[in-house]
């Protein structure tokens, strides 16, 4: 034992000595004129062709036009969260950081309080005339660009038009509808008729499918999410007349469960919706095993139509509206992104020249910068036209063959990653003429129009932020509640739990603190509305 003690004592001494050695500071980089550094996760579709954003033709052009040299620091794609947290922990920042600052633990105001980033109100006002002009003209944007306390915390990514906010919804086999003489379903009754017809005519054993909760994201494509909202409730938090609700906690949710379980029991719903990933669902759709599903405009409809092109078994996809109970109703909810989804470029407390950074960032919001960031370089990645199919008469920067048919086989999105930021996100205003071309097929355009016809804007939660203290409490409550909800909803549908137990499900949610969570969200919403 004595040996141990002495060993420990020596260990301790060495530890202290070692800590002393490490106390020396890091090397300071010499401030260089007109140079900036930016931290940002590299979009995976850009990562397949470049090592860093400053290698893209887009940013080389930006450098030429602004005379400001920018160097990117990229964490590995898919691991941005860890890398971001470590950067914050080390308190060693580049000039600018592109991140979803709403997700900073405790919210953006806490990020300012932690001396990570600075308030941009004065800088934007004085040195970013283009951006502040846009915010002055768009009160909705201005409201989302600040915290409850009125601090502007980032140079935001803005979806410049409604068309850009809607990209997910129900899809049906159009050719089967035609074959059976059916219309695209509108009400839940229509849906049932269509699904039963698919089944009865031997077209599909289990016609309706989704991806699994754990494989396809928890939010917008939760199983049957599109089929929950006709009952006037949702999968998660939503608002109605300024009041916050947690969807599964409402009595209306029981109606959904009864209804959906009935479909499930009759085999209208594919039992594998519980476990399948995107690839498995794609294979089912393309092999004609299923007749209806929910998916994206681009990576769903677009990818399917590409895969089917020129094949003997090619089929039509009909986008269907979010279902309603009665004909003439407007859907209670549908997928809709916020105009300011939350990501943005913040300026760190260690920014060497905030004015220079502001000048560089503001370029993207100018007329010239807007086109450059959305469409790339004229003559190289786009040409102006007034005859773009479907939008004749409008001035459209049309992507060139370089973009649409790359000799190396890169896809339009991958080329978009080289020449633009409109294909993903960035400190820009996204232009809707980009989506006209990315989602250029008539089916895709139709889908966006149809899926946009909902009351989602009134019922979805805006990007509210809880106070730093409350946000931790909210997180602790919701992580357990979400697990519980995911599991119980599936159990109800599969029949492992009788629907008669719905009340005890609600009671359990209450014991887990759902009332408190709603209260926190309500306060946050009230503060948001008061901005």
């Amino acid at each position: 034992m004595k040996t141990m003690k002495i060993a420990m004592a020596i260990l301790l001494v060495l530890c202290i000595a070692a800590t002393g050695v490490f106390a020396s500071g890091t090397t300071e980089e010499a401030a260089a004129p007109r140079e900036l550094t930016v931290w940002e996760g590299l979009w995976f579709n850009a990562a397949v062709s470049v090592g860093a954003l400053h290698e893209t033709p887009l940013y080389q052009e930006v450098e030429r036009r602004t005379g400001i040299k920018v160097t990117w620091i990229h964490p590995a794609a898919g691991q941005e969260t860890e890398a971001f947290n470590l950067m914050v922990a080390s308190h060693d920042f580049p000039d600018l950081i592109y991140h979803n600052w709403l997700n900073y633990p405790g919210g953006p105001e806490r990020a300012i309080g932690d001396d990570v980033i600075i308030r941009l109100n004065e800088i934007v006002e004085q040195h970013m005339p283009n951006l502040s002009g846009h915010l002055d003209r768009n009160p909705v944007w201005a409201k989302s660009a600040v915290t409850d306390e009125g601090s502007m915390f980032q140079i935001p990514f803005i979806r410049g038009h409604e068309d850009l906010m809607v990209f997910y919804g129900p899809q049906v086999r159009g050719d089967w509808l035609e074959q059976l003489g059916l219309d695209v379903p509108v009400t839940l009754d229509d849906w049932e008729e269509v699904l039963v017809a698919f089944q009865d005519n031997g077209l599909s054993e289990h016609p309706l499918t989704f991806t699994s909760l754990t494989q396809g994201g928890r939010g917008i494509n939760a199983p049957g999410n599109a089929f929950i909202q006709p009952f006037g409730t949702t999968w998660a938090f939503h608002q109605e007349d300024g009041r916050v609700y947690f969807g599964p906690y409402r009595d209306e949710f029981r109606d959904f469960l009864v209804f959906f379980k009935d479909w499930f029991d009759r085999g209208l719903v594919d039992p594998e919706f519980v476990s399948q990933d995107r690839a498995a669902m794609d294979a089912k759709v393309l092999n004609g095993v299923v007749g209806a599903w929910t998916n994206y405009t681009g990576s769903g409809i677009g990818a399917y139509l590409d895969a089917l092109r020129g094949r003997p078994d090619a089929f039509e996809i009909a986008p269907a509206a979010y279902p309603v109970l009665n004909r003439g109703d407007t859907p209670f909810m549908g997928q809709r992104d916020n105009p300011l989804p939350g990501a943005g470029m913040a300026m760190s407390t260690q920014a060497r020249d905030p004015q220079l950074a502001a000048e560089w960032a503001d370029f993207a919001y100018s007329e010239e910068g807007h086109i450059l960031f959305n469409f790339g370089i004229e003559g190289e990645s786009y040409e102006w036209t007034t005859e773009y199919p479907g939008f004749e008469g409008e001035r459209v920067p049309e992507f060139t063959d370089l973009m649409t048919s790359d000799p190396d086989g890169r896809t339009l999105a991958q080329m978009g990653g080289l020449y633009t930021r409109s294909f993903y996100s960035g400190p820009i205003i996204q232009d809707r003429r980009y989506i006209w071309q990315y989602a250029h097929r008539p089916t895709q355009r139709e889908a966006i129009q149809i899926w946009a016809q909902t009351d989602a804007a009134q019922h979805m939660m805006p990007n509210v932020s809880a106070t730093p203290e409350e946000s931790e409490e909210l997180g602790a409550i919701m992580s357990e509640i979400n697990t519980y909800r995911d599991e119980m909803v599936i159990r109800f549908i599969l029949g492992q739990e009788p629907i008669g137990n719905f009340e005890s499900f609600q009671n359990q949610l209450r014991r887990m603190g759902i009332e408190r969570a709603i209260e926190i969200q309500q306060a946050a919403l009230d503060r948001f509305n008061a901005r």
Partner: protein
Amino acid sequence: MKSTSSQRTDGVALLQVRPRMGQRGYGAMLLKDLLRNRYVYLMAIPVIVFYITFYYVPMYGLVISFQRYSPGRGIAGSPWVGFQYFQQFFSSFYFVRLIRNTITISVLNLIWGFPAPIILALLLNEIRSGAFKRTVQSLTYLPHFISLVVVAGLILNFSASRGFFNDLIAMAGGTRIAFFQDPRYFRPIYIASEIWQQAGWGSIIYLAALSAIDPELYEAATIDGAGRFRKLISITLPSIIPTIVVLLILRMGQMMNVGFEKIILLYNPAIYETADVIASFVYRKGLQEFAWSYATAVGLFNSVINLMLIVTANAISRRVNDTSLW
């Protein structure tokens, strides 16, 4: 290097009598030891420096399990909360289930997964054709190299209702099984895929140990008329027992650790009942709230359990067959 043979013989002499404290001053003994083993200690210096610098210094980070840690404020600036996160974990709605699932998967993996590489190594050892043996060796460790992301995709694909396994079942006249919607099937699938992925790789250690056996032992046994099974039992197995025991003890120190990545790539809410383990739970929590302190508290809890298990296993092993880690 110049040698000092007088001290060396002195050292060898000392070996016979194990130095006891109190007989002579501790300091004197220590000095003697330091002198005698000075080159050994010279070798130990970089090792000790490594462990202290890269493990013991960063280990103070464990204190954040008693803090409401925020990355922005650092350890120095974060407020202390005592055992709040431990209490939160123990009082979690899922605590019992998480512990149960973690331990069940660990124990099953130990029972089925631990012997697999040993058996594989022994079977390989019985192969006489060198070329065949080498081929089998090189092929069995392949699954270890394929990323979990790809492996999980394959497992899901093969277990789907129209997947390979169900095709086999249907061919044999059975009814198709919804493997990933029924909590009963998760553990067998998980364990089987673990074995498939790790048995070949794990057998390398045993193959290395087997190669240390003196061929003369086998020759002598053959002359004595021992059959192959006899040789396996009385020569081969005993000579790899130390390796087996050491690996088993180390394994006991990992009982509470079931990696989250494979689990979250495979599971879904319908099978949380058997598939949700501590690590995947903490992972989900982290997504929700960047729960640094909570995750560290749970990790510390796991470490303490692991520590108890490894100490117990080591003590038993020392008593039973005189093999000990320390």
